[in-house]
């Protein structure tokens, strides 16, 4: 009765630590993950004020050995050939229709490329890479953990434990020892704050997490805060704000397509995407600030001033640092301009909103 036939949920190397720290665990992308520890609000605000530690070991870490930059350019929109050793770049796997198979980070490691992809997409991405790049050794690094230290105090915390991290620039990656633990540290993140993503052997993840959590500025944070932080930062979540039916141009990710790739194309869906870059896309992702206190969630209809349907919310909720509800969604280009009045329908009632610039908060990446 009521038995679930689903595959058993996987656990990250930090599962026991999460439980010890009192996390509320939920199923997410096939894993048992902490949604919150003390509470989403306090974790969110702590990330904006000091630093929080996320377990993102469920995400897919992959390595492509050899000189793979040329080959990878056939699958992504980024300039991979021009990526210097030690640099990290955000990019997109696209399909023949110009849709987004996944968004990911690429690091040029010299003799290899490191990829970090979304948890829910790692099997799809891995199969895609193997199918399309048959001549390469591609490894899914299941024995690696990934932690994210995010917040304005992240740099001072990490520099105490790994002094060499002090000189790292945004979107760079270094092999560093934190304490005695060998790590690959990237100065990247999705909170709009300064921060680092730290990859290490799964067997050492708990020791590393305990070391970071022992620093006075750091508290653990879960998926809930991760979602409110990235929404305020105006960043897309695959499966919500982007998917195989949205193009990079519709999603407002034009900046991820470098100049050379715009001129040369050579990625799946290039004709459609490059045409949209030139002519505009049929819809556009926008940020919306609501006037009242009622949050509009994913799926809420977006109406124009005359009550006509013009789009739908793809992510929305209460934004702790904004102090009110925000949303992002797709609308027709005619109403995509900042300052346009819109209405979001929540429980059959229209709520007043306005198209605003994203991010919703000031970004504090260290550039």
């Amino acid at each position, binding site marked *: 009765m009521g038995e679930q036939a689903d595959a058993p949920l996987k656990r990250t190397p930090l599962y026991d630590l999460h439980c010890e720290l009192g996390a509320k665990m939920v199923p997410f992308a096939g894993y048992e993950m902490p949604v919150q520890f003390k509470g989403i609000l306090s974790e969110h605000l702590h990330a904006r004020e000091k630093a929080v530690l996320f377990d993102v070991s469920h995400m897919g870490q992959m390595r492509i050995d050899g000189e793979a930059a040329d080959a990878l350019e056939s699958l992504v929109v980024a300039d991979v050939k021009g990526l210097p050793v030690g640099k990290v770049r955000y990019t997109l796997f696209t399909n023949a229709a110009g849709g987004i198979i996944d968004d990911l980070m690429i690091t040029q490691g010299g003799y290899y490329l490191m990829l970090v992809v979304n948890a829910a997409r790692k099997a799809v991405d891995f199969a895609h890479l193997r199918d399309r790049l048959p001549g390469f050794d591609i490894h899914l690094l299941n024995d690696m953990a990934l932690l994210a230290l995010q917040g304005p105090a992240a740099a001072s915390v990490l520099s105490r434990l790994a002094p060499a991290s002090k000189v790292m620039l945004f979107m760079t990656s270094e092999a560093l020892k934190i304490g005695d633990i060998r790590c690959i540290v990237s100065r990247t993140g999705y909170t709009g704050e300064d921060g680092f993503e730290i990859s290490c052997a799964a067997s050492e993840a708990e020791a590393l997490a305990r070391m970071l959590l022992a620093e006075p500025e750091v508290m653990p944070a879960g998926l809930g805060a991760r979602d*409110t932080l990235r929404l305020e930062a105006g960043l897309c979540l695959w499966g919500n704000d982007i998917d195989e039916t949205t193009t990079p141009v519709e999603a407002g990710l034009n900046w991820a397509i470098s100049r050379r790739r715009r001129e040369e194309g050579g990625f799946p869906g290039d004709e459609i995407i490059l045409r949209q870059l030139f002519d505009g896309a049929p819809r556009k992702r926008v940020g919306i600030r609501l006037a009242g206190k009622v949050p509009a969630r994913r799926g809420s209809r977006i109406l124009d001033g005359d009550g006509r349907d013009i789009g739908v919310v793809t992510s929305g909720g209460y934004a702790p640092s904004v102090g009110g509800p925000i949303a992002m969604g797709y609308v027709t280009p005619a109403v995509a301009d900042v300052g346009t009045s819109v209405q979001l329908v929540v429980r059959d009632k229209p709520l007043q909103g306005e198209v605003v610039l994203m991010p919703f908060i000031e970004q504090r990446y260290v550039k």
Partner: protein
Amino acid sequence: MLPVRFTREHEWVRVEDGVGTIGITDFAQGQLGDVVFVELPAIDTEIARGVQAAVVESVKAASEVYAPVSGTVIAINDSLADEPGQVNGDPQGAGWFFKVRLSDPSELDGLMDQAAYEAFLRSLD
């Protein structure tokens, strides 16, 4: 001590002189997490037992609150507009939602008392 009755959906109602004060339980607020907004019924609304009477918006999601008893809404907790966190901090006190004049007090017989509700919570583990 006024008797408090509970539903399987984790609402509570405390009755005095034919008026029921209604809110959600400590268990419910713990499940929902940080409450950021509560949509309350309008005064004078006629509500029926088991139908949606309020909505709690937490950071994560919107959750419906069902009327544990039927009646007419005679008061709402205005202070939740500015301090929705009272639902987390004091769910059976300052975090109450609304009051109804009961139209059928016999409905209380179908609800759980404190001991039965606690046993029900244990059965959920």
